[in-house]
């Protein structure tokens, strides 16, 4: 089962023929992902990586039956690309693009409100269901199949967590990189809800960072509705207030979005919080053992 994507998902790549699109589409295909085509306006009718190129997402959907799209379109045009995918009826849009202006994302989020489309990201590593389908830029070999769901704002920290989980003897059901921008569409809580409802996921690793209130909201939801153990980590315990730490959204704006404040709320809500990012893997395995015993 897993969540969001699986071996039956049909994926198109927006920004297919660009450098990024080409490189990562190739990697996705090598992983076994069912990439059915791509979209580059003006190059419709041609072939790229042995797959058809379309002028519009609507054409691609009509011809291929695609239900998932991954966006590698440059920041200035990425908002437009996401809305085009939603308009064409794509169910899941994964926006990898980093650097989309906030003003554009306000419009995109508004546009998606009454559409039947879920957006992951932007500025995210994507989604991977281990052994089945990779819709993202993560190194696929790290994600061995298993029962742990991962939700994270960060790219490399997600790989780090997955690697630790695997080395500790467990595996990954699905990993969702929700993105590090001030406006991201799928929240930590929504990702956690998906895992709580997924029969193939037994425990959840939730990785956050300074800035915003997504982790606190997810923690409160877990306290009320959680049915599976959750291990949490917040990056940026040593980050100074008011400075942006790489990600556009990673800035401490007030007392509530520091790492310490988030970790406290998460603990109060029953989440096993680790202070060191080096023990995420062993902790989730221990937690899982206790549940089984």
């Amino acid at each position, binding site marked *: 089962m897993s969540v969001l994507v699986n071996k039956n998902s049909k994926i198109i790549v927006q920004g297919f023929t660009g450098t990024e699109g080409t*490189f990562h589409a190739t*990697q996705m295909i090598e992983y076994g992902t069912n990439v059915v085509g791509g979209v580059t306006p003006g190059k419709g009718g041609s072939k790229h990586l042995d797959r058809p190129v379309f002028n519009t997402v609507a054409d691609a959907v009509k011809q291929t039956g695609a239900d998932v799209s991954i966006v590698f379109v440059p*920041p*200035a045009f990425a908002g437009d690309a996401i809305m085009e995918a939603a308009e064409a009826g794509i169910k899941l849009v994964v926006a990898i693009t980093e*650097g989309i*202006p*906030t*003003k554009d*994302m*306000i*419009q995109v*989020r*508004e546009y998606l409100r009454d559409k039947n489309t879920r957006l992951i990201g932007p500025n995210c590593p994507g989604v991977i269901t281990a052994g089945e389908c990779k819709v993202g*830029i*993560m*190194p696929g*070999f*790290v994600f061995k199949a298993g029962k742990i769901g991962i939700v994270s*704002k*960060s*790219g*490399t*920290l*997600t*790989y*780090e967590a997955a*690697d*630790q989980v695997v*080395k500790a003897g467990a595996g990954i059901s699905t990993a969702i990189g929700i993105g*590090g921008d*001030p*406006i991201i569409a799928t929240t930590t809580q929504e990702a956690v809800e998906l895992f709580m409802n997924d029969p193939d996921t037994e425990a959840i690793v939730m*990785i956050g*960072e*300074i800035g*915003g*209130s997504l982790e606190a*909201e997810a923690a409160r939801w877990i306290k009320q509705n959680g049915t599976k153990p959750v291990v949490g*980590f917040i*990056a*940026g*315990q*040593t*980050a*100074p207030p*008011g*400075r*942006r*730490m*790489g*990600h556009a*959204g*990673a800035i401490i704006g*007030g007392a509530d979005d520091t*790492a310490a404040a988030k970790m406290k709320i998460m603990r109060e809500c029953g989440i096993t919080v680790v*202070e*060191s*990012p*080096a*023990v995420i893997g062993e902790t989730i395995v221990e937690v899982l053992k206790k549940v089984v015993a």
Partner: protein
Amino acid sequence: MVADTSDEAVAAAKELQKQTGTGWWVVKAQIHAGGRGKGGGVKLAKTLDKVKEKAGAIIGMQLITPQTGPQGKKVNKVLIAQDVYYPGPNKTAEFYMSVLLNRQTGRNIIMYSTEGGMDIEEVAAHTPEKIFKEEVDPKVGLQGFQTRKIAFNLGLSGNAFKEMTKFVAALYAAYINSDSSMFEINPVLKTSDDKIIAVDAKVNLDDNALFRHADYAAMRDKTEEDPTEVEASEHDLNYVKLDGNVGCMVNGAGLAMATMDIIKLAGGEPANFLDVGGTANAARVEKAFRIILKDPNVKAILVNIFGGIVRCDRVAQGIVDAYKSIGEIPVPIIVRLQGTNADEAKKIIDQSGLKVFSAILLKEAADLVAKVIK
């Protein structure tokens, strides 16, 4: 009007007198930090001689405010402004107003309060009922009823009410058109003749939207920024200088923050945040080393790379090449390479003959940090 010297300040004051008829001036230090008044960076001058004297004193001073840190910031420029607190038929009043993104709803809000001129976090902590929020629907933008609601909630009537509705509409339009991520006007002043004026303003721009505003680049004042951070940004390295003793070089922002946390847990203090990005090749690694080493407080460097698409053995070779090119690196270096080809990478590091500690697990790296800083 902005002045670099006390003579320019006097000229500006004269010009301002010609334009507005003002007889009193305010001399304000121009640095990128708030709380300037508290540090003595804002002075009232009632004569032109005083303008010269106050401007002379402020230009060149090391201004310390609650936001600059204990070392303060050197003042290179002052703003000469008209004194807007002049006497008149009505009482003056100060308000607070900001425009920012509500990250929860993904919409912009206008936050405002009758408690102007004060630290808004204090107001929020003690009298939260005095802070109002007005959310803007992105489909239609800010509406007239909203600007009226704001003016009413601020207790205004008559001409001041009308002026405030115009002020709010203009402020919001400026926020949107400039692709800003935060406007903070504190105080917004109602003058004694019922005009509405922004007396102080703090503006944060959305870095992601700078490509739409080529003119902003010309306004960037690099002297207000940390020179090492400027140099790093010119090489596309995301570097933030901190006060600690262990430097770090990491790929990815989240892992970089996590690495800073590891350093702290190992008993050190992070000296910087540094994300080398997805292409950690020899040239970038060398530049990153050079930037970290500019900080004399750095006693050790932790390199933490999770190789995904980037192959660890290539990064390792990059480190060896960078090391040789720089020559003597005076502090111990801990290299942790994990992911694609991590074992080959460790071999390259171990066989290079360099004084580098290598690790594969994050835990091992943390232990090595603790060991070398003892």
